[in-house]
């Protein structure tokens, strides 16, 4: 069935009346996602596109529309509030797409959600999709996906689409795809997503796409080495980025040995992951592994 999302996922869009929110709410709906509510304070009572009720608060969206997943598009200064509102209302799964959330806001949010029964994906992420359940909670182009048994996880947006595009072009479907986000502080780590794929009976292998910067890929490598019982193929991008330069993602800045592509590739290889040679080889590498698995 894939991870995080399933046929019972009922999505509310926080910021549905905004430019981004409305565009992507429509795209999610067009993909088949059950978008059951929108939330925009002060605009409660409206109907979005004549079909989705808009509420003033998340609590109302939960109580009246039975929403159980939040998809957040509010502007950066209000993102922490939107996340906290969903957590407070007991929403168990939240994807925050918003880019540019102040780091110290996320420091606080990270503490707030600790030990609470909630999973936050992002912020600054493309979201997640489960093609088999026709459920898309994010900004990825739905059409490139196809149902299948390969899990994809990445820090990035368009690079995830690139990976998915290569897979689909070769007829390899996806159980789920998750972009965990590129910010310094995010809700869910690589390790946690790998753990979900590991436990998902409908995922046979995982395509893992990391980047330079930080040491999350090393943590993932440790998990792959110790716990993962499914094959993983891994790509690290940014090998040719100049040191000390910031490459868009707050994460993609090389500081210290562990942040280099070489260090990450080494850790993943030693953990038993198959290394994808270049970003152009994602699909073919996965194909070879699937063939080897029989």
């Amino acid at each position, binding site marked *: 069935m894939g991870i995080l999302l399933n046929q019972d996922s009922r999505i509310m869009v926080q910021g549905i009346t905004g*430019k*981004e929110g409305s*565009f992507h709410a429509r795209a999610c709906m067009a993909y088949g996602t059950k978008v059951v509510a929108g939330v925009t304070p002060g605009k409660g009572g409206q109907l979005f596109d004549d079909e989705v009720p808009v509420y003033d608060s998340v609590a109302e969206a939960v109580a009246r529309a039975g929403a159980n997943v939040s998809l957040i598009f509010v502007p*950066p*200064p209000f993102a922490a509030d939107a996340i906290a509102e969903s957590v407070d209302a007991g929403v168990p799964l939240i994807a925050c797409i918003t*880019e*540019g*959330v*102040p*780091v*110290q806001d*996320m*420091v606080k949010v*990270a*503490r707030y959600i600790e030990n609470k029964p909630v999973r936050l994906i992002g912020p600054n992420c*493309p979201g997640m999709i489960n093609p088999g359940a026709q459920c898309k909670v994010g*900004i990825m*182009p739905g*059409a*490139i996906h196809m149902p299948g048994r390969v899990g994809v996880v*990445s*820090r*990035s*947006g*368009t*690079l*995830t*689409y*690139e990976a998915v*595009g290569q897979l689909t072009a070769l007829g390899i479907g996806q159980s789920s795809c998750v972009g965990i986000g*590129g910010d*310094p*502080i995010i809700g869910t780590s690589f390790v946690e997503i790998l753990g979900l794929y590991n436990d998902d009976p409908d995922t046979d292998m995982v395509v893992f*796409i990391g*980047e*330079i910067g*930080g*040491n*999350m890929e090393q*943590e993932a490598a440790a998990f792959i080495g110790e716990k993962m019982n499914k094959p993983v193929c891994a790509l690290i*991008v*940014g*090998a*040719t*980025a*100049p040191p*000390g*330069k*910031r*490459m*868009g*993602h707050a*994460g*993609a800045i090389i*500081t*210290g*040995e562990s942040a280099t592509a070489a260090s990450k590739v080494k850790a993943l290889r030693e953990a038993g992951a198959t290394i994808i040679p*270049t*970003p*152009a080889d994602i699909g073919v590498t996965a194909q070879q592994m699937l063939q080897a698995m029989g």
Partner: protein
Amino acid sequence: MKLHEYQAKAILSRYGIKIPLGHVASSPQEAQAATQAMGGKAVLKAQVHAGGRGKVGGVKVVQSPDEALQVAQAMLGKNLVTNQTGASGVPVNSLLVEELADIKRELYIAITIDRGFRGPVMIISAAGGMDIEEVSSTRPEDIHTEPIEPILGLMPFQTRRLVQKLGIEPAAARSAAQVMTSLYQIFVENDCSLVEINPLIITGDGQVIALDAKMDLEDDSLFRHADLHELRDRSQEDQLEAEAADLDIAYVNLEGDVGCLVNGAGLAMATLDVTNAAGAAPANFLDVGGGATDEKVAQAVEIILSDPKVKRVLVNVFGGILRCDVAARGVVIAYQRRNSNLPLVVRMLGTNLEEGKSILSESGLNVTFADTLTEAAQAIKQAI
């Protein structure tokens, strides 16, 4: 956003951290007068947004006001090239003239965000005055990291521990602990991504003084610090990078000749990787972002085209949020505005792909289409 040393020190001082007596001079005469006022001796420090200035003549001790005049004349108005700048360096528009300090010990102290801890950590070392990344790789045992729980803040038991690790004598221990506490307050209240005092010195008479200071503000939080935003010095930034930043475009100037326009940071890095792998060298990293309009794409392409080292352009767009027709239209607008005929390789995927292709085909530009990353890299290699 980076601050100058003198700006950072002014903030430190406001939070009670001792700094040397100093004066910012933007002319040799000012430097001379300031040195005179300090008793005839001083240190002149180039105010630039780059580390490593000490090794390339950016910090000079002068023994007289006249020497200050000469040294300042030699420094001001020139560009300083350090191991952290590009080949053209950064302009020295002002000097910090400071009294000389009686240095007994040099310590390192900084706060930044630790991704693993998901919060601020204080980093200290007894090896102050040196490049901390070098200390970190050669003598990691000399660096201590102390996570700071946001709900508690930096607690006294932590500053005691840090002071002990640094081996600070009892006379200066209280001042050093106070510096740590203030530094955490500065970090939080100003939404810093880094505050660093290197070196934090202990003087012969036991005073604890911030001899140098570095302060980076987190860009995403600047909206709540209008006063700090005003401290921005655009002269210190790469002009194309600054222009891009104003347009909310992530841009990094590189050394090659392939101008790259990509949407998404991860895909942009992947594009650099495959371009390099194909034997071509990127002139830049450019992430135009997801919600771009044709005008924003046009401005991004114009930044690329205005870079004299660019000889060919690679557009790699995965049309999800950014539709292919919008991207195509933006590229055409920019080429027309700039009257450019540089070879163009376009690889597009996703929404409105055919429309995008036909806009480009009909534009009369010298365009080659590619379907995959591999094809795009090969095409750009040959497009010269």
